[in-house]
């Protein structure tokens, strides 16, 4: 059994219940949803809405899942499978919300080889600094290093304090 990270972009009709049609089979096969991004600005000429869904799932179940989604008539625009072999956590402190945390996090994933797979934000006061711990998974140590370097760069620009783990060799 090995877990993979899937980034799936589907085109959905812009009406209630469509997303659920995609999520149910993923969930039924034991997939763990990591993130869902509605690309509302990128509506197709046929008025369909691209939605990016990231999830972790056992690699042996991927083939069945894709078959299942296709049989339900779901339009798969792209499909990307990444074996996650390297994982680390980093802590971010600063004005995370005001500086667009979703942009901060998506900065690590420019080639689909690294992904933020878990996040916990603590924001005690709306005007004060918030704190988040994020877990990043990547397809290998090198990709993880690259992702961290990109994150450092964004954090420097946004004046976010980044606290990295001391035990990199334990990744």
């Amino acid at each position, binding site marked *: 059994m090995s877990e993979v990270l899937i980034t799936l972009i589907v085109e959905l009709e812009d009406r209630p219940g469509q997303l659920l049609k995609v999520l149910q089979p993923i969930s039924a096969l034991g997939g763990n949803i990591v993130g869902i991004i509605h690309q509302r600005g990128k509506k197709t000429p046929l008025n369909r809405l691209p939605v990016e869904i990231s999830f972790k799932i056992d690699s042996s179940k991927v083939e069945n899942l894709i078959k299942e989604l296709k049989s339900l008539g779901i339009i798969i625009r792209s499909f990307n499978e990444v074996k996650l072999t390297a994982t680390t956590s980093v802590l971010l*402190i*600063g004005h995370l919300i005001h500086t667009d945390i979703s942009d901060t996090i998506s900065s690590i994933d420019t080639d689909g080889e690294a992904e933020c797979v878990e996040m916990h934000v603590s924001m005690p006061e709306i005007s004060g*600094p918030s*704190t988040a*711990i994020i877990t990043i998974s990547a397809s290998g140590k090198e990709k993880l290093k690259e992702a961290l370097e990109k994150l450092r760069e964004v954090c420097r620009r946004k004046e976010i304090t980044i*606290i990295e*783990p001391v*035990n990199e060799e334990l990744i």
Partner: protein
Amino acid sequence: MIKIAIIGFGTVGQGFAELLVRKRDEIEKAIGEFKVTAIADSKSSISGEFSLSDTIKMKRETGRLRDDVSAMEIVRNAEYDVLVEASVTKIGGGDAVEYITEALRRGKHVITSNKGPIVADFDGLMKLAEKNGVKLMYEATVGGAMPVVKLAKKYLAFCEIESVKGIFNGTCNYILSRMEEERLPYEQILKEAQELGYAEADPTYDVEGIDAALKLVIIANTIGVSARYEDVEVTGITQITPEAFQVAAEKGYTIRLIAEVSREKLKVSPRLVPLHHPLSIRGAMNAAMFKTDTAGNIFVAGRGAGKEETASAMLSDFYEIYAGSH
């Protein structure tokens, strides 16, 4: 008869003198007879014939020593074999650079607790000592009583030291471990540390990571990574929120100010440390993890500051000069 001159007679200088008095018999048994021939502080001094215990007493009671001869004159003219330099650290080195330089030129051993000169001119001073056939010892500049310098140079001989990761500022470690326990804001814990005497009224030097960075420079040079203070990437602990400990704990981490040196890295910054990792040590402690090629990981920890702790490191240097090679 080994003759000792002490420059700088504040907490550390007095601590060293007190240990000499208290442990005289053991010391003499190990390295032979010794005598303190001169002591100087920033405004007074004593040399010639005097009682060491009475001089410590006089300094404590009156805040000064018997004579007016300057520290530089003592360094230049007094009769001694080893200079114990314990003046206050100044970034850039200050007068201590001249004291040490002059003593080495005269062919005298030097033991210092002062980071300033060692950071300012590590290579120059080491070469000068070598050229004059004497030793410049600086164990007390890093980690207080915790052995770091002699550990790296002597006990890990022929090991390639790939990296050192350590906690070299007890004040920061106290504040962070209290924040971890109490989940209270930084400012509040800082106040507590100040009341307990763990932090200075102006805590900048400690909490901004400056002190740890100076020590990191010394360790780097000791393990053969040539470094200056300006080369260190420094982040302090003032931005850390109490929630940071909360969210970190959920993933099995705490936060400590870690100084790290390797061939690629020279950095002081708060880091996530696994709760079971030895560097998650609590309280006003120092600790260091040496990663080596042949000896694996070596971990040391101890009290990083304090009068006796620092003096004990200087005494171990004294032993090393006179008995270490026998």
